[in-house]
C-alpha cells in the first residue's frame, strides 16, 4: 500500500510565488491583468455578448457589495450565523477526531477494531448524511453544527493517528534509555512529532467545516450565507449572489491565513528565525535560573 501521507498539498499554493522584480512590481502587473479581465467582461456584457442576468457585470457586483454591506447591511448577520455554525462544528469535530485518534493510538485493540469502520467512513461521501441530520436536529442551528462536525472530524482524526504513529524507533530508544515515563513519551515525543501532521489536518478541517455548514443551509435554513445565496440566485438577483460568494471567498482566505499563522507560531522549530528567538529566550531563562 502506498503510504502517501501528504496527498493533499493544497497548502503548497505559493508555488507561483517567485516574484521577479520585487513584490511591488509584480503586484502592479497582477493588478493590471485583473483590471483588463474585468474590463473585457464588462464590455462583453454591455455589448450584449453575455447575458447580464446570468453573468452580471463587475460594476453591478461592486454596487451589490456596497448594498449588502453598507446600505442594507444584511450580510453581517448571515455571515455571523454561518461563522458560528462552522466554528462550533469544527471545534466539536476536531475534539472528537483528535480524541478518537489518541484513544486509537494508545490502545492497539481499539485501533484494530476501528479499522474497518474507518475505511467505510472514508469512502462514504460524509456530506450525504445532511438530510438525515436535518431531520434529527431540526431546521435550526444545531443541524448545521452537526453536519459541519461530521464532515470535518475525519481529517484531524486520520492525521493525528498517522502523526502519532510516525515516531521513529531511534527516538523511542533514546527516550527509553533516558528513563522517560509513558506520560513523558506521549507529551514530549509523540505530540511534538505529530504536530505538523495534526496541524495540516486541522487546516483541512476548518475548510470542510465551512462547506458542511453551507450544505446544511442549502438543505434547509432560515439564516446563513448558504441560504442567502440560494435566495438571491433563485430570484435571479445574480449581482448580490456574486457579492455573497465573494464574501465567502474572502472569509475562507482569512481563515486560511489564520491557520498558516498558527502553523508558523506553533511549529517554531521549522523556521530558523523563530527557532533562534525561542532558543535565545530559553537559554536566558536557564541562565537566570542558574544564578538564583
Amino acid at each position, binding site marked *: 500500500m502506498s*503510504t*502517501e501521507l501528504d496527498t493533499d498539498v493544497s497548502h503548497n499554493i505559493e508555488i507561483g510565488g517567485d516574484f*521577479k522584480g520585487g513584490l511591488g512590481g509584480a503586484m502592479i502587473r497582477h493588478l493590471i491583468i485583473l483590471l483588463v479581465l474585468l474590463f473585457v467582461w464588462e464590455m462583453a456584457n454591455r455589448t450584449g455578448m453575455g447575458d447580464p442576468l446570468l453573468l452580471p457585470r463587475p460594476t453591478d457586483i461592486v454596487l451589490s457589495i456596497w448594498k449588502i454591506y453598507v446600505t442594507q447591511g444584511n450580510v453581517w448577520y448571515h455571515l455571523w450565523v454561518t461563522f458560528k455554525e462552522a466554528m462550533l462544528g469544527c471545534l466539536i469535530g476536531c475534539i472528537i477526531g483528535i480524541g478518537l485518534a489518541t484513544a486509537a493510538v494508545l490502545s492497539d485493540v481499539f485501533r484494530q*477494531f476501528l479499522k474497518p469502520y474507518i475505511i467505510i467512513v472514508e469512502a*462514504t461521501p460524509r456530506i450525504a448524511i445532511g*438530510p438525515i441530520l436535518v431531520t434529527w436536529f431540526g431546521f435550526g442551528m444545531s443541524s448545521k453544527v452537526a453536519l459541519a462536525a461530521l464532515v470535518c472530524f475525519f481529517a484531524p482524526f*486520520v492525521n493525528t493517528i498517522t502523526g502519532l504513529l510516525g515516531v521513529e524507533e531511534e527516538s523511542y530508544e533514546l527516550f527509553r534509555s533516558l528513563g522517560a515515563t509513558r506520560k513523558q513519551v506521549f507529551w514530549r515525543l509523540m505530540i511534538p512529532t505529530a504536530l505538523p501532521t495534526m496541524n495540516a489536518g486541522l487546516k483541512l478541517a476548518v475548510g470542510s467545516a465551512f462547506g458542511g455548514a453551507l450544505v446544511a443551509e442549502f438543505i434547509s435554513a432560515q439564516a446563513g450565507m448558504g441560504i442567502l445565496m440560494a435566495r438571491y440566485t433563485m430570484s435571479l438577483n445574480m449581482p448580490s449572489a456574486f457579492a455573497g460568494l465573494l464574501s465567502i471567498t474572502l472569509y475562507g482566505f482569512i481563515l486560511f491565513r489564520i491557520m498558516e499563522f498558527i502553523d508558523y507560531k506553533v511549529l517554531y522549530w521549522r523556521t530558523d528565525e523563530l527557532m533562534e528567538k525561542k532558543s535565545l529566550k530559553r537559554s536566558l531563562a536557564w541562565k537566570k535560573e542558574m544564578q538564583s
Partner: protein
Amino acid sequence: MSDVSSDGILKGVKELSLVHKLSMHLGVFVILIGGWELGSRLGYVNELIMPPPTAIGYRLYEMFFITGSIYWHYFVTMFEAVCGFIIGVSIGLSLAVTSAISPVFRRYWAPYAVVFNVTPGIAVTPFIIAWFGFGWSSKIALAALVCFFPPFINTLTGLLYIDKDATELFRSLGANRKQYFWKLQIPSALPIIIAGLKLAMTGALIGAIVAEFFSASEGVGILMQRFAFRLNMDGSFAALIVMSLMGLSLFTLMEYMDVKVLFWRRHSRMEEVSKKRKAKWSIN
C-alpha cells in the same frame, strides 16, 4: 474533503491469522448491530430517529430486488459523478501541465488558484443551478468544479519538485525537453497525481450529491432527501448505505488503478512487470 489515506493505521498491531481476525471483527459487528436492534425493539431508541437495522435491511432488499427502483437513481448519480470527474480532471491536469511548463502562466494564474482554493467549491451550487438548470448538466458541472482542484495542485507540485540528482543525470545524458518531461517529470509525479485523482473522485461524488440536494428530480441524493423529509428514516438510511457502496466501488477502482499504474511501488508488481519486459526484450 479529506485527503489522507487510512493506510498505516494498523502499524504496530500484532498480526493474527485471517480467520481469527475476521471472526473477531464479525463478532464486534454483530454485537453492535444486535445492541442497536434490541434497543430499538425494546423502545430505548426512538424508531423515528434510529430505525432498527432489520428495517433498513428490508428496505435495501425492497429497493434492489422487489421494486428495483434504486438502479435508475444509482445510475444517474454515478453518471453525473463520473462525467464531472472526467471533465474536472481534464481541466485540472491541463492547467497544471501548462503552469508547470510555462513559469509566466504559473505566475499570473497563481492568485486565481488561491481564490479557487479558499472558496469551498460547493458554495457555488446555487450559481451552477441557476446557470445550468435543474437537469443532469448542473450536477456534472458542480462535480467538475468541486473536483478539479486536487488534481491540479497535486500535478503541479509533482511536476515541479523533481529530484535534483535525477535532473542532473538526465542533463548529463543529453535528454531533450520532451524526454525530460515524459521520462522523468511524469513518472516521478505519478504517485502524487494519482493521490490527487483519488481525492477528486470523492469530490466529484460529493459535488453530484450536493447538487442533487439543492434541486433535482432523480438521483440517490434527492431520493434520500425525499425519504428523510417524509420521515421515512429506514429508507433514507438505506439510501445512505447505497451512497457508501457507491463511494466504496469508486474508491476500489482508484485503488486498482493505483496498483496497476504505480507498479514500481509494490515489490510483487515490480517483479511481474520486469519479468514481462525482460521477455519482450529477449525476443527482440
